[in-house]
């Protein structure tokens, strides 16, 4: 008798799987760089292209690296959230201008606000590949030792900030450098 119930049992497991699947996002790619050192980079600053910023320069403090571009539509949605965060001065924020034109990028910052201490420019996307960037916007949380601790995919909403990013940030800043 029990072997006849086997198909029904297997079906039940399948349904449970599919139901769970309805609430997952199959297109989201988690980053393998979590808890690993941020990739080496030396990139020109967006505002002053003669100067560069590298990974070394950012060691010693926790920072957010926000990947953005002037052609990115949803970046506009998160900009007010990032501006508010910048005003609280809780964390250093750096912009990573991805595959963009300099004038368009500067104009975009003027229009939508510039919360960043500095923005670096990756025009061909090569460094973006090292960071595992595949969509825009993305936001990385990096600790004082240069280790990537969290990657947020998609625009950062106020709720995302409050429930995920800020708690993680505080935990990192709470630890001794």
């Amino acid at each position, binding site marked *: 008798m029990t072997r*006849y119930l086997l198909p029904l049992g297997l*079906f039940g497991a399948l349904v449970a799987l599919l139901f769970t699947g309805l609430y997952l996002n*199959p297109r989201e790619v*988690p980053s393998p760089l979590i808890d690993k050192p941020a990739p080496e980079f030396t990139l020109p600053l967006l505002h002053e292209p003669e100067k560069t910023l590298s990974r070394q320069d950012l060691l010693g403090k926790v920072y957010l690296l926000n990947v953005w571009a002037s052609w990115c539509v949803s970046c506009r949605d998160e900009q007010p959230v990032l501006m508010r965060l910048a005003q609280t001065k809780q964390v250093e924020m750096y912009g990573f201008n991805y595959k963009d034109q300099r004038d368009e990028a500067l104009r975009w910052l003027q229009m939508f606000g510039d919360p960043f201490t500095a923005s670096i420019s990756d025009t061909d996307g090569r460094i973006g590949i090292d960071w595992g960037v595949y969509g825009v916007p993305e936001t990385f949380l990096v600790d004082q030792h240069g280790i990537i601790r969290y990657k947020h995919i998609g625009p950062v909403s106020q709720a995302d900030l409050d429930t995920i990013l800020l708690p993680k940030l505080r935990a990192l800043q709470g630890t001794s450098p």
Partner: protein
Amino acid sequence: MIPELGHFALILALCLALAQGILPLIGAQRGNLALMALARPAAQGQFVFIAVSFLCLTYSFIVNDFSVLYVASNSNTALPLEYRVSAVWGAHEGSLLLWACILSVWTLAVTVFSRSLPQVMIARVIAVMGLISVGFLLFMLVTSNPFDRLFPAALEGRDLNPLLQDPGLIFHPPMLYMGYVGFSVAFAFAIAALIGGHLDATWARWSRPWTVVSWACLTAGIALGSWWAYNELGWGGWWFWDPVENASFLPWLVGTALIHSLAVTEKRGAFKPWTVLLAIFAFSLSLLGTFLVRSGVLVSVHAFATDPGRGVFILAFLVIVIGSSLALYAWRAPTVKSGGSFSGFSRESLLLINNVILMVTAFSVLLGTLYPLILDALNLGKISVGPPYFASVFVPLMLPLAVLIGIGPLTRWKQDDASSVLRRAVPYLFTAIVVSLAALYTLTDHVSLLTGLSTVIGVWVIISAVRDLIARARKGQRLPRAFIGMSLAHFGVGMFILGVTLTGAYNIEKDLRMDVGTEVTIAGYTFTFDGVTEVQGPNYVASQGALHVTRDGKPIATLHPEKRTYRVQTMPMTDSAIDVGLFRDLYVSLGEPVDNGAWSVRVYYKPFIRWIWAGSLLMALGGLFAASDRRYFIAVRKREDVPNAAPARA
């Protein structure tokens, strides 16, 4: 007005479907002839209303009624007429209406071609199909109404996705759905038999033609999809093991096991619980496919616009239909007495192995398709499962199965002697090896072990199919259509194997920069680039390239690949140019302009690729031929002539 009529017709159809689904079942349970007699007229009425609804939607497309949201989202005034009509099933809502329409057509067919069946059985069969229809109609009316209005009406439509503006769209979905939906007939027969407890050889005989025709339609539908992808997508591929493609392949694999299992149940009374379970599985997989394509659970280029809300509805429907049928199976199957004993080496046992392999293959395809979801749900990371996995699993499973195709028909029912069968098979195996090696060595100078093995097996299958036909004709026995159909279908399998093997092993692909006058030669064919001109299509502009092909100086073909930009959905699209041949395709697609009038061009030589679809077509034709066998119609006459003969019982 017309859209409202269409909407109202759907509501009426739902009412009839409810009546059709519930009343005859009650009637069959209670022996109430009046209630049972409602089945046929309810089904026929439902067909009329769904047909009216479908025609209303088609009409809205033809006259460019952009006040209907679905029409505005999927059509355009510049869209050619044939695509305006096929756009009806180009997106989610309309394709559901097509599903419901085809279901009502199959049900109508069942009401017409079932005069010889007992009233109780036919009442149950039609009722089950009615219940399925209730699900689809309800789904449409509640979540996916194709007749939703757009206020204010759009001035112009958003156009049909350019990838769908191809003859493939006209034929592939309807044929595919004919297959998917057709399995509901086998399913309904299985449920009716489980409820009534009459699971016997006669039930198998009734089910069989319906199942074989559905299988043939599904074979043709999948082949059309593959052919369309090859023509349209520009990368020369014909199967990607994409989740939606797998969703159509799963019912095919189980359907193939089902038609073989039905053969055994009909002829020998064996495998009954298996056949019933397979019938349930085949249709369940059709429904699962519907879920996977529309729920957003898996990522696919073919997926319809995804919506988890709709996903929940379909999942609930799946739970009700599949859950209750498997519960019914668990309850009733133990009481089914299976007849027909058979010995260790017999046609039955070989068919059992055949079905085991097919089921394991189906399971593997399902596993590979769902595995990323499984790991994600268990929080074990995200992986991708693609063609390399499926190929490594599918081929080792299929090759032994193909070998069996040549041995099974040589083996007697009930009992046979393994050594004598194998002895008879050896000369044919030998011939297959000789023919394959000879052919391969004349065609090419490098043969891998796998290529050689697959070629031998492909030739073996073809030789076996021809041998069986000739052997039977020689013995002076009748050649019933069922037998010819089987030989034809098996021949098709052999062609398919050869097509896949040879094109996979020996296709040549070159990407290169071509200026006007540049030549490239592959496999003895010389392609010369003659430049690009701008042309206008009905709803697009295109850069049209020209290449002429020669072989040994003789002209073979002139090819015109295009790079199209559609006016409304402005994404650029490649339209490749193909010179079709029985033994090879020459395939060209345009890339990008490089500089000074030069273009990047992709040129392919694809040997034996047509055999993939020719083989599939033969499989489908074989199925149709077999289903038209006289004995399915003779049964009617015999039953009336012999009033004393008791119907065969389990």
